[in-house]
C-alpha cells in the first residue's frame, strides 16, 4: 500500500508526459520516447567521466572548503560578542549578495579554470554556513557551558564535545542552504565559461539545437540534484540523529 502511494503519482505524471508528447511535432518539446532513446548515446561513460565527474569534484571541493572555512570562522566569531557585533553587518551584506554575480568578479581574479569555479562555489556557499555557525555557537546553552567549565572541559575537547555538537543543528541548516547554492553555482560557472562540465554540455546542446539531448541533460542535472540532496539527508541523519530524537521527545 505504501509503495503504491509512493509510486502512483510519479507513474501517472510520467505517463501523462509520455502520451502528451507522443508524436509531438513541436521542435522544442520532443516526445519523451525520443528523449529517453537518445540518453544512452549522450551520457556514455566517457561523457560521465569527462563532464559530470569534474563538475561533481569541483562542487565537492568548493562545498567542503566552504564548510571548513565557514565553521572555523563561525566558531572564532560566534564565541566573541564584540567581534560578532563588529563583523555581523558586513557578513549580512556579503551573504545578501546573490552569489551568481560573484562569477564575473572571480573570473577577473582567477581566470576561467577549475580554480575559478571552485572559488565561485566557496564564495557563494560560505556565507550561510558562516552565519549559521556564528548563531549556533552564540546560542550554546548557558547551563551546558557552565557544566563544561566546571568539569574542566577546555581547548579542543570543548570544541569537539560542546561547541560543535551544540551548534550542529544550525550548521547543518546552513550547509543545506549552501548545498543548493553550490549546485546553482556549479552550473552557472560552467555556463559562463568552460569547455567541460555538465552546465557547459547542456548549454552546448541548446546552442546547437540538439533538443532531445538538451532534455536529457536537464534530466541528468535534476537527478544529480536529487542524488545530492539524498546524500545530504543521509549525512544529516547520521550527524543529527540525537537532535531529531530530542525534538520528537520535546514535542511529546
Amino acid at each position, binding site marked *: 500500500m505504501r509503495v503504491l502511494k509512493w509510486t502512483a503519482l510519479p507513474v501517472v505524471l510520467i505517463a501523462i508526459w509520455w502520451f502528451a508528447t507522443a508524436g509531438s511535432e513541436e521542435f522544442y518539446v520532443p516526445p519523451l520516447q525520443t528523449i529517453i532513446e537518445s540518453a544512452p548515446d549522450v551520457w556514455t561513460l566517457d561523457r560521465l567521466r569527462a563532464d559530470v565527474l569534474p563538475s561533481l569534484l569541483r562542487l565537492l571541493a568548493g562545498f567542503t572548503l566552504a564548510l571548513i572555512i565557514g565553521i572555523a570562522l563561525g566558531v572564532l566569531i560566534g564565541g566573541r560578542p564584540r567581534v560578532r557585533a563588529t563583523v555581523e553587518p558586513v557578513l549580512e551584506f556579503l551573504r545578501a549578495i546573490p552569489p551568481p554575480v560573484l562569477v564575473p568578479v572571480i573570473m577577473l581574479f582567477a581566470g576561467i579554470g577549475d580554480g575559478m569555479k571552485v572559488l565561485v562555489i566557496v564564495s557563494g556557499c560560505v556565507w550561510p554556513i558562516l552565519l549559521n555557525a556564528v548563531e549556533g555557537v552564540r546560542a550554546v546553552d548557558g547551563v551546558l557551558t557552565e*557544566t563544561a567549565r566546571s568539569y574542566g572541559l577546555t581547548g579542543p575537547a570543548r570544541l569537539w564535545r560542546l561547541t560543535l555538537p551544540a551548534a550542529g543543528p544550525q550548521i547543518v541548516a546552513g550547509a543545506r542552504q549552501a548545498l543548493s547554492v553550490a549546485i546553482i553555482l556549479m552550473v552557472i560557472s560552467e555556463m559562463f565559461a568552460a569547455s567541460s562540465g555538465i552546465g557547459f554540455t547542456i548549454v552546448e546542446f541548446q546552442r546547437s539545437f540538439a533538443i532531445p539531448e538538451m532534455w536529457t541533460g536537464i534530466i541528468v542535472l535534476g537527478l544529480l540534484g536529487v542524488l545530492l540532496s539524498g546524500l545530504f539527508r543521509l549525512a544529516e541523519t547520521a550527524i543529527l540523529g540525537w537532535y531529531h530524537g*530530542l525534538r520528537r*521527545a520535546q514535542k511529546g
Partner: protein
Amino acid sequence: MLNVEGLRKTYTGDGRAVEAIRDLTFTVPDGDLTCLVGPSGCGKTTLLKCIAGLLTPSGGTVTLDGTPVTGPPPGMAVVFQEYGRSLFPWMRVAANVELPLRQKRLPRERRRELVHESLAAVGLADAHAAYPWQLSGGMQQRVAIARAIAYEPRVLLMDEPFAAVDAQTRADLEDLIRGLWQRLGVTVLFVTHDIDEAVYLGRRVLILSSSPTVILEDLPIDLPAERDQLHTRATPRFTELRTHVYQQIQAAKNTVHADR
C-alpha cells in the same frame, strides 16, 4: 575545607546594578553536609556559582583548602537545577558520565569502572546506552548526580537539584544523596529553597535572608545520622527544627518589608 569570607556579589549590566549577595562568611569543614536554605531569588545560585569559580565575586574571597578560587577548581563537581539542560543531549548517558573523566585523563579501564559504579549507585545500571532526553526528569537528574560522583570530587555542590522532580522521586533522591555522602565521605554543599528538605538532609543548615543576602543563622541539625523519610520526618525534633527555620525566614522577610 571550604572557606567563604566576606563574599559580595553585585550584578551590573544594562545600566542597573542588582545587589544579589551583601556579605557572606562561613566555612564548610571537610566531609560535612551543609544545606543552604533561603527564599527564591535570595542569591543561592549566585553564591554557588561564586564558590564553583563560575562567577567572579564583587568582593571577598572563596578558598578551597587554602587555595583561592579564581576559576573552576579541580576536585569540585556541580549539579545544576536545570537537569534537562546540564546533560549533553548528543551523548548517551555513559558518555555523559565519562566525559569529565576523559578530561581528567584517567585510563580507559578506570573510566569504565567509575561509569559503571556511579550509574549503578544511582540506580541506572540499565541506562548506559540511552540518550538523556529518552529518560524521565528524575532519571536525568540521577545521571547528573552519577556524573558528579564518578568525578570523585572532594566537594560536591548541588543547586536545588530536586526542585523540578515529583515528590516521590524527590524523596528517593534525597535518600540517595545522604547514602552517597555517608559512603563516599565527600563534602556536600546543598542549596534548596525547601525547608523540610534542608532539615532532613543536612548535618547543618545555613539560613539565608532574602536579597541582599546575609546569613541569618548557622543551625546544627541534631537529628540522628540514620534518617529515613517516614520516621525522621515524624519525630518531634524534626518538627521543631523546621518550625524554627520557617520562623527565621518569615521574620527576615517581614523586617525586609519593614525596611522598605
